[in-house]
């Protein structure tokens, strides 16, 4: 049941093999992602009903939480591959990549998706770690795809910081194993790294040891999840990667890393009480929100703006997760989904804007709304959603978080958050409003600027109708989820909350 995960891997190698026609790799990618998504939907439906899937030897495992994350990953991978077709064709025409590079791109893309899908399925914490590290490696190559100074620099920082961070995560994992080693695992061998076993025997584990483990893990995976103050790789990588990849990075990669934190937090929470975990998570959350909101004020490039907004949203997720309780946890999990729809949509819109603008700068273009009304409207919907404006979906999760804050009487945090959200709103509206509105014109930029960012500008907006349809669906999703949360998703979320609240922890 769980081995569908090899589908993207297969697709990857098909892409690598397809030397002759770039079309081939496009179709392979699309087909692979769609098949995987279909499978995941079945899985999720089952998980929503309470079924839990195991592979032999319990290395792979899928409960409601994993299914939920998987669902997001697979759906978003479909979106990303559809958009990739439009985007990479444009790049091909522009000559920023050649046919070979295209093949390479699709290969890595599928690999990346595969590694990400592995993360939530991993039951063994070491396997989880490997998967996360693998995502870094595969995506680093994608970030460096255009062999330009900036992209290489970004990739270098990305891989360096994330690998170092993740080293700490591994250390944490080892310590966790050591804590578990004393306890007899469920399946005979002394000490197991299976999350299920550790969770089962969580009460017996030594709290002090677990706390140490959690510290290393949270720094490690937190770096990858883009939590301030260890977020520094994120804006560079997001702004320099090809746009579909940026979408994947901020939409799900961050969540994959955060998923690791959550799994650990579940165990630690049971063993040594929620307070410790919650304080750490809330501290990270507040820091991220504040820093991101301030940095957004001074951004000149659209993708960096979005990148910082991702940091802000990861901060919100971490903050609500730290809050715990029915409000906090529901908010955190719901926010993961909401952000995973809104942010990629905005990246896609930005990609289209850049297809006609001089460079990636915010003042590189005016009046895009007139050039492509649909995209423009979607862009407005996107920024409204990202700024947490009702009736769009992100407002709901933020509202729940605020309820949590109020219930916990964290008035200062609430004040800080509200101020920060005001700044975020202003920055987003100023940035994208400036590009979408105004007289139709491309502000001429100094040549250096122009070549320094995405290559020469095309005349017509680059569109491919399936991509437009897909983006429209995403936009509708933003609105729909803002007004109604489907029962299935609600079940998945509530069951996943059970993982953290079930044993009286959190």
């Amino acid at each position, binding site marked *: 049941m769980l081995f569908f995960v090899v589908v993207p891997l297969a697709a990857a190698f098909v892409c690598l093999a397809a030397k002759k026609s770039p079309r081939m790799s496009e179709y392979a990618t699309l087909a692979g992602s769609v098949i995987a998504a279909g499978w995941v939907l079945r899985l999720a439906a089952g998980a929503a009903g309470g079924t839990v899937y195991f592979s032999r030897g319990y290395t792979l495992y899928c409960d409601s939480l994993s299914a939920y994350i998987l669902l997001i990953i697979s759906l978003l991978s479909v979106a990303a591959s559809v958009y990739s077709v439009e985007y990479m064709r444009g790049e091909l025409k522009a000559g920023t990549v050649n046919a070979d590079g295209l093949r390479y791109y699709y290969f890595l893309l599928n690999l990346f998706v595969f590694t990400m899908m592995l993360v939530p399925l991993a039951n063994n914490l070491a396997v989880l770690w490997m998967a996360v590290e693998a995502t870094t490696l595969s995506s680093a190559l994608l970030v460096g795809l255009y062999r330009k100074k900036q992209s290489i620099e970004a990739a270098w920082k990305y891989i360096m910081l994330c690998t170092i961070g993740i080293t700490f995560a591994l250390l944490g994992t080892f310590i966790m194993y050591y804590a578990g080693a004393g306890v007899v695992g469920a399946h005979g061998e002394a000490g197991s790294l299976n999350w299920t076993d550790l969770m089962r025997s969580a009460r017996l584990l030594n709290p002090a040891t677990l*706390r140490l483990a959690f510290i290393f893990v949270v720094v490690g995976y937190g*770096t990858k999840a883009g939590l301030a103050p260890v977020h520094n790789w994120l804006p560079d990588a997001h702004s320099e990667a090809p746009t579909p990849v940026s979408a994947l990075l901020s939409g799900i990669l961050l969540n994959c890393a955060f998923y690791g934190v959550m799994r650990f937090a579940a165990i630690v929470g049971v063993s040594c009480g929620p307070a410790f975990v919650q304080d750490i998570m809330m501290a990270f959350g507040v820091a991220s929100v504040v820093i991101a909101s301030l940095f957004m004020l001074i951004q000149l490039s659209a993708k960096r703006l979005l990148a910082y907004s991702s940091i802000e949203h990861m901060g919100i997720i971490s903050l609500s997760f730290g809050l715990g309780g029915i409000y906090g946890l529901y908010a955190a999990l719901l926010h993961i989904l909401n952000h995973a729809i809104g942010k990629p949509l905005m990246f896609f819109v930005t990609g289209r804007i850049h297809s006609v603008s001089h460079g990636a700068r915010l003042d590189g273009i005016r009046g895009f709304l007139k050039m492509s009304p649909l995209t423009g409207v979607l862009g407005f919907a996107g920024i409204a959603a990202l700024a947490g404006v*009702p009736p769009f979906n992100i407002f709901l999760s933020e509202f729940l978080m605020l309820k949590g804050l109020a219930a916990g009487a964290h008035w200062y945090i609430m004040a800080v958050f509200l101020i920060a959200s005001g700044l975020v709103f202003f920055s987003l509206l100023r940035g994208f409003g400036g590009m979408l509105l105004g007289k139709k014109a491309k502000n001429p930029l100094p040549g250096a600027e122009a070549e320094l960012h995405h290559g020469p500008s095309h005349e017509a907006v680059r569109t491919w109708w399936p991509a437009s349809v897909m983006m429209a669906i995403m936009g509708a999703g933003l609105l729909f989820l803002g007004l109604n949360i489907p029962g299935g998703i609600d079940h998945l979320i509530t069951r996943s909350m059970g993982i953290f609240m079930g044993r009286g922890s959190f």
Partner: protein
Amino acid sequence: MISLAFFICGAVFFAITPKKGLLHYLYLLYAAGAGLAAFSFARALYDLGSPGAAPTLAFALHISPALAVSFRGGPLQDFFGLLLSVAAFAASVYSSGYMKDNAAPRFQGIFYGLFILSMGAVFLSGDALSFLISWEAMSLVSYFLVISDTESEAAQNAGLTYATMTHIGTAFIIGAFMLAFAATGSLDFAGMAAGLAGKSMALKSAIFILSFIGFGMKAGIVPLHIWLPKAHPAAPSNVSALMSGVMIKAGVYGVMLMSLYVLGGPGAHYATWWGIVVLATGAASSVLGVLYALMEKDLKRLLAYSSVENVGIIFLGTGAALVFYSFGQTALAGLALAAALYHAMNHAMFKGLLFLGSGSVMHGVHSKNLEEMGGLLKRMPYTGLFFLMGSVSICALPPFNGFVSEWLTFQSLILGSVTPPAYSKVVTLLGGAALALTGALAAAAFVKAFGVAFLGMPRGPKAREAREAGFPMTASLGFLAAMCLILGVEPGLLLRLISAMPFAGLAQMGSAAPFHSPLTVAGGFSGFWPAAIFASMLTGLLAIIVLAGVFGRRRKITYADSWDCGIKALTPRMQYTATAFTKPLRVIFKTLYMPRKEVRISFKQKPLFVSGITYRSDITPFMENYLYKPLTAFVGKVALKIRHLQSGSLPLYLGYIMLTLIGLLLVWA
């Protein structure tokens, strides 16, 4: 419910109708919907007394098993709903003519409908979540309407300021709701009211002040008003009419909802300083608002500033009501509250009228600048007449509606002298003084507006070619003008609706104005009889005509040039301009205006032969320069400082990781 259907159909049709030529007729759908809504609201208010009166609508939608939004009609809700639907009716009828030649009718039509709907949702929502959703939806849609001219930079900046400020305001509102939620565990307004009854004064005060700031932002009270004169003029006139006429009332509604309903639950008692704060803010807004209106050369900005003024007047009444409640003088509180509500309704009428009128003027003259108008009364007689009626009403001159509400406000403020402590006496009476000053200033402002725009000689070619607006536009203007007159002559009509509300003391107001007899307040403290004043004037007119007919012989009337001291050509440039008209006031209030003037003289031959003199004079926007600019500058500076944290050097980033780790280890150890 039916009206709801109408609106949805309207919006859908706007989306699907293929022929752009037909689009403007769809506004009539909205008009029909609004009309129906108006009737249902009015009926609901009339039935309130009678047993078994059903709320106008009540239903709940589930977002998720845990989350639901509920909408419920109630007295206050219905009153503002009525206000909305009447204004919306007029505006929609107007739009059907106004939108005939408009740039992007399709989007605008949809957003226009959504705008009205969202405002209705705000007035009718029964719990915090639904309120916030509709509130922000309203703000968002209105933002899109403000920027509907996507090409103009000014509109964009206005929109940005507006959206940001209203978002911050919403943050305050959220804070207030969350405080209430934490205290009562309920997000339902009724639940909050019940739960807050026994709570501590400090908590209540916090909730009150937060909500007052948040809603005041939307209502445009000084000093939170700066978005208003930017945003309202930027929108197309039919929308500005709704924004100024209704949307800022949403702020008023919010303040009333929180202070009177949520905080004023059973057995609630108020802190006197709440009322004092509201009153003082109201006074400041009314005076400053009208002072800035006086200086405007842009017709729509003038109207926008006057909205600030009128909101101030409404808050004068509200504040007085809160003060009276705090002393348990419910009857007087009822009077003050009635004044505030009455003025809210009035302002919706005449401000709608004036904005729509300004729309017609721009339609004819293609300019918002007063200095380019003049002599329009002869070219657009109906618009002129109705605009004049609107001006008279907004200056609170009998026999029009503005006077009734201002009279009531005056009474309540004078009666502030019966409150026990001296400070409330003084404050209320000073509020009265502010109101008096406001009245005089408003008169000057609108004399300027009407006189310069409609009287005298055309000041430019645009004004000379001006043509009267089409039928639907003038018709809706006429409708609103008639409303102004009716509400001014027969206050009983509206006071009966107001008195139906369950707030303590309002009940007396019902009997205060039975039809065809004087309006008396506070147990005969004072009274007047609008209808009689009107009638006496009419009879007087009749008498004059009769006398003239009997005694006077026909005299000949010769038409000639105006007196021009003998120079043979009196050119329009010799007329008093709007700037010249207000010059004395610029001098008198120079400490406030800080006027800057520049005189440029170009010579044929120095120093004697002057070829031309240009005189520019404008005023320093006080708030912007001394409150907002420093604030934004400060935030910007902080952001630039913090920029160094991300200096791009990898070792630094590694350092962050290490420090974080060590810090956490410290926590752990």
